[in-house]
């Protein structure tokens, strides 16, 4: 397999994304740069929904709690990828952004030059999980970097 020196890995810890992580770690040559992009989808902003009965303090507690929860999940995820990157002697960096997954990936690609962008496949139908997906079509139309979509891991 060809090795690459500067990879953008789009992963947020789902099974499909973890398959992308494994392949990215495998493809990077020693000393390569691995930039990890984690997108927190904007649907979380609508998660207080139409609550109006609570007071501001309860809503603030909820927001802080949700932010902490999401932060903890992201930290755990980054730590895992970072540990594996360290074992392979890669230069690991990460970027956590809130937005639409495909828009954030495109923006990230505009800021740096990468050899390759790696991401997982959309979850197969019937698989449980939150509904927030990359739109591969918009990526394919916009990106001027090779894009590798890793197949969803089979059982």
């Amino acid at each position, binding site marked *: 397999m060809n090795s690459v020196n500067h990879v953008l890995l789009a992963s947020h810890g789902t099974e499909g994304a973890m398959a992308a992580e494994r392949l990215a770690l495998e493809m990077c040559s020693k000393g390569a740069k691995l930039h990890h992009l984690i997108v927190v989808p904007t649907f979380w902003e609508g*998660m*207080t929904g139409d609550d*109006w009965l*609570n007071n501001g*303090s309860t809503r603030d507690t*909820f927001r802080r709690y949700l932010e902490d929860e999401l932060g903890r999940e992201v930290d755990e995820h980054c730590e895992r990828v970072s540990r594996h990157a360290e074992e392979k002697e890669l230069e690991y960096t990460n970027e956590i952004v809130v937005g639409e997954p495909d828009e954030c990936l495109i923006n990230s690609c505009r800021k740096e030059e990468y050899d390759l962008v790696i991401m997982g496949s959309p979850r197969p139908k019937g698989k*449980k999980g939150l509904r927030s997906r990359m739109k591969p079509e918009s990526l394919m139309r916009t990106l001027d970097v090779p894009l590798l979509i890793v197949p969803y891991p089979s059982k």
Partner: protein
Amino acid sequence: MVYTKKSPALFIIGIIMLAIWYMADSGMLAPFIEHLAAGKKYKYGAELTSIPLYFGIIAVVIGAWQWFGTHTEGNWDYYSSTIAGGMFILLIAMLVRWFIAPEVAVISMAMGKVGDTGKYIHKLLGLNYVVLGILTGIVIVNVFKVPDWAQNGVRLSRLGLKTGVILLGTLYSAAELKNLGGLSIIMIGFFVLGSVGMVLWMGARRNIPNSMGGVLSAGMGVCGVSATVAAAPVVQAKSVEIAYTIGTILLWGVGCMFVFPIVGNVLGMSHVQFGAWAGTGILNSAQVAGAALAYQPDGIETLKVAEIFNITRVLVLPIIVLWLAMWYVKREEGSEQVNVGRVIFEKFPVFVLGFILMFALSTTGIFAPANHYKGKYFGNTPEQGFKEKNLLKDDDIALLQAEADKVQRADRKAALQRLLENRKIMSIDDDTAIRGLVNAKVLSKKANKILKHAHKAVRHTAKKIKAFRKWITWLFAFGLVGLGMQITVRAMKQAGGQPAVIGGVVGLTKAVLSLVVVLMLVSETI
């Protein structure tokens, strides 16, 4: 950070409002209004020639200052940043109430009545200004997105609903509150505890984590998203569990808001029955208010009943959160101990105190005579609003005297006698007896007409109560349009996993069982 946006938006909103006022006031809109009225009297004429003028001037002045002025950090800046969004919601509420909803009614009436229901489709589906306003809000946030300059103001819509509930306190008589309060405590107590228990029982059988069971039971049992928001940190729910639960509740709530009025119309439920059913069976408190106003857009009797149920639910919320916290601590090692006082203090709905205060003020007679019932009171003196021209005429007395022998019941006979002697109804008891006489249809139509007139002459609507009713309608319309702007399809799409299955079963059971209980046990009036 400076929150006020240097944008022409508020100024433009003001110009649009003033243009509406000008076109309505000058008669330019007359042909369109005639079309909307569909042969009847257009209901919103007075509003159309006053409200957009007042708010239009405010929006133009503040909008010009926001657009051209300089803004610095501070409290005033934050409050100022909410005005554009607030006016945006108000403009949408105006357009929907005055033009869009009547247009939908005109189209619906042109399509004819639906099958053998005897009702037009807009009546059957409850497509009035409230539902259409919420729908418009949902469309705006999901299709166009709420503009940046309106974001802070859209959050203000919650204040509209809370203020609406507080003012609603002025409209209850002590008897109503006692009866409705008792009914709601029984219904809410049974169905809240029942659905919380059912979720926990189903959760245990389906091996869901305690945190998921905790957050879902609060949402399904008490008051939807509000309860989920209050309970999630206490039971340490995972992010995915929160997303599943809130998605499920939002989807279910929006669905119920449309389905409940249709069922209510088909079954011909009374306002009290529908209010009690919506207040118990609909998960989300905002959608309870929406469904109540959808069922009865031009009156607030249904809303009054539904809101008492909402208030009972929100009062139950701290107790349920506390109980869930203790339940969770028992089951999860290492979870934080519960501070009872803190939970009660933090979750207590302060606005309910405002409601109670307004009710207490109302019983002192500050807004209407203390003996008022549903805002109406008895008065047969000029000081109390009785007009001398409404005294019975000689012809009326002659006709009633000729038929007086037909009356058998002693109380009705005596009340009629006093009416004939004094030419007006003399007491509340007499008024009740006369109304009973009319309903019994013992006398001729002509005589009944005279009695009805005599009854109306001594029944007055308090001016302040009338004004409160208008304000309440607008505050709820404002609040619900704003809440619509906070319901995202992306959040609803997260409905799934075990919460969707358990939530679906419990939600449906609650809706059906509460309907059966209401139809069997709740009388048509309170």
